[in-house]
């Protein structure tokens, strides 16, 4: 069992004929992901890395029974592409685009909730079950960054994720499944909503959350633990302890404003709920050791 994606997931790539789409389709396939179709309007009949391209998601789904989609489309077209996937019945979607307009993200979040769909992103590096399958662009082939293991990871970051998983590998731990929810101001799926999947996953012994200043997602995780909805050990690293108020370093979600979303508040809530919080990435491994987790 794995979380979100496994060998049976029939993956569609929207925007497959673009540079990034091509490049990462190859890597997804190399890992063993079952990429069954691609979509680029007007490019039907082309072939990318052995994958057939269709004009519309509807056609791709009809032809291939694709049941998950990863989007390599520019942010302005992400809204349309997500609704195209939803309309065709796809309920697992990964949005890599950074900088989708906020109101469009709202529409997606609202629609996905009503439809029971899980949309990861925007601005996510994707999801991966190392050794099994990937939707996105994580450099899984770099041994010192990714290796299969028993720690589930949820993250708001891209490069920091690699930093943190590299620290895990260094300390002897690997990843069961990693879900990037992305760095946008309105993540289309929130940390707490993913906890049940990790709770149910027999291949996950503990979860690492890579959080950031801003928003309230880390606090929601603390609430879920307090409510008994998640019972496995949880370790967190949250970036931005010293970030100046009102200054945005990087993407939209990572900002403290109106006194809300500070790392201190998040760490306090998580610790109160029984989670372990690392002050820097290099401490993550030691915290897993402290849990007595099998490596």
């Amino acid at each position, binding site marked *: 069992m794995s979380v979100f994606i496994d060998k049976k997931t029939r993956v569609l790539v929207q925007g497959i004929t673009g540079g990034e789409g091509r490049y990462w389709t190859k890597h997804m396939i190399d890992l063993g992901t079952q990429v069954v179709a691609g979509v680029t309007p007007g490019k039907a009949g082309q072939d990318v890395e052995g994958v057939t391209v269709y004009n519309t998601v509807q056609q791709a789904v009809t032809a291939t029974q694709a049941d998950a989609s990863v989007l390599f489309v520019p942010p302005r077209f992400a809204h349309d592409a997500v609704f195209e996937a939803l309309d065709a019945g796809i309920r697992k979607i990964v949005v890599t685009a950074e900088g989708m*307009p906020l109101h469009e993200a709202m529409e997606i979040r609202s629609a*996905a909730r009503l439809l029971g769909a899980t949309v990861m992103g925007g601005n996510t590096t994707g999801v991966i079950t190392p050794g099994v399958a990937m939707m996105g662009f994580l450099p899984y082939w770099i041994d010192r960054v990714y290796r299969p293991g028993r720690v589930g990871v949820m*993250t708001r*970051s891209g490069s920091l994720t690699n930093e943190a998983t590299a620290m895990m590998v260094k300390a002897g731990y690997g990843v069961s499944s990693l879900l990037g929810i992305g*760095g946008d101001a309105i993540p289309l799926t929130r940390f707490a909503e993913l906890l049940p999947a990790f709770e149910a996953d027999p291949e996950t012994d503990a979860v690492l959350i890579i959080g950031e200043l801003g928003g309230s997602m880390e606090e929601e995780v603390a609430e879920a633990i307090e409510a008994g909805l998640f019972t496995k050990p949880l370790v967190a690293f949250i970036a931005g302890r*010293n*970030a100046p108020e009102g200054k945005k370093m990087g993407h939209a979600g990572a900002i403290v404003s109106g006194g809300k979303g500070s790392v201190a508040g998040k760490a306090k809530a998580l610790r109160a709920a029984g989670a372990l919080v690392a002050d*820097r990435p290099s401490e993550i491994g030691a915290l897993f050791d402290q849990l007595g987790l099998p490596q």
Partner: protein
Amino acid sequence: MKLFEYQAKGLFAEAGIAVPAGQVVDNVDAVEAAIGEVGLPCVLKAQVLRGGRGKAGLIQFATSVDAARTKAEQLLASDHNVQKLLVEESLKIEKELYLAITVDPLTGKALVMGASEGGVDIEDLAVNAPEKIVRQLVDIKQGILPFQLRNVMFGLGLKGETFKEGMQLLKALFGLFSRKDAELVEINPLVVTADGQLIAADGKFSIDDSAAFRQKGLARTREQFDSDIEFEAAEAGFPYLQFDGDIGLMCAGAGLTNTVYDLIADYGGTVANYLEFGGPNYRRAVEAMAFTLRSKPKVILVVTFGTIARADVMAEGLAEAIETLKPDVPIVTAIRGTNEEEATEILKGLGLEPLNDTEAAVQKAIALCG
């Protein structure tokens, strides 16, 4: 992008929301003509983007032209980067309300918030007396419905004609929120005048940067930035912040950047600037380094752990930047990710000592600041 008060009020007025009579001036001599329009007593409001202008002395009242000139002079000369003043009529205030629309990330809906105690800090109210805040979620696709307008207006305790006016005002405000891709619109205070009129006495308006491509009417201007360099970097597509420390930071990704910033602080260093070197900017090393050098750093620290960004491309870019710009400060790198071995070779070829550990890189950069 945050708009100035006078810009927000311009949008309000266009949408049919009443605002005080007012004129924008950028010099003392224009004050008298403005008073000719708005009358006396009048209010002088510094057009800056920071909050708490009242406490900071950036809002002044004047009962004569002479006093107004003097106060205008002081405001324009203050160290708050005041480029413009809004000269406004003084309102006859019966009551002050709060009204705002923002986004609710949990539901993906717009969130209308109102309070019958305006002029206050809504965050304080949310903590100390949350029951005094009316909240109404609104589907952004559907727009605001009559019952939602009523829910808010009943919550604000309005009656009769003021109630109806409030419904129209909120409908107009929601239209603006929607059409302008706003992150936040706020009227605080929303003044009820002695004769029951509703007037937007202040206005905050923040537009989603990601929707700027379809909000061309509201161009970014120099005034919105604290420094020339931040404005120019934004124009060039580089997220950039100016600090006053030692280390010039070229980093990829918010999470990693904030981590590096934390580590620098932990190890006793200071930051000269932050420049986002990730995303589409990873191929623009020459421009990136040029901006970074303008912050006069003692050392440049480059930390990336590439996702889309490829390490070798970044390293090649740095090589070109060093060749072109010939920086006279040391450069510390921790460039990791796809093709990192090639990157390491390229950097070594430049005479650098590439690191692959973030903490080690931070410590080295601090040490080099001396």
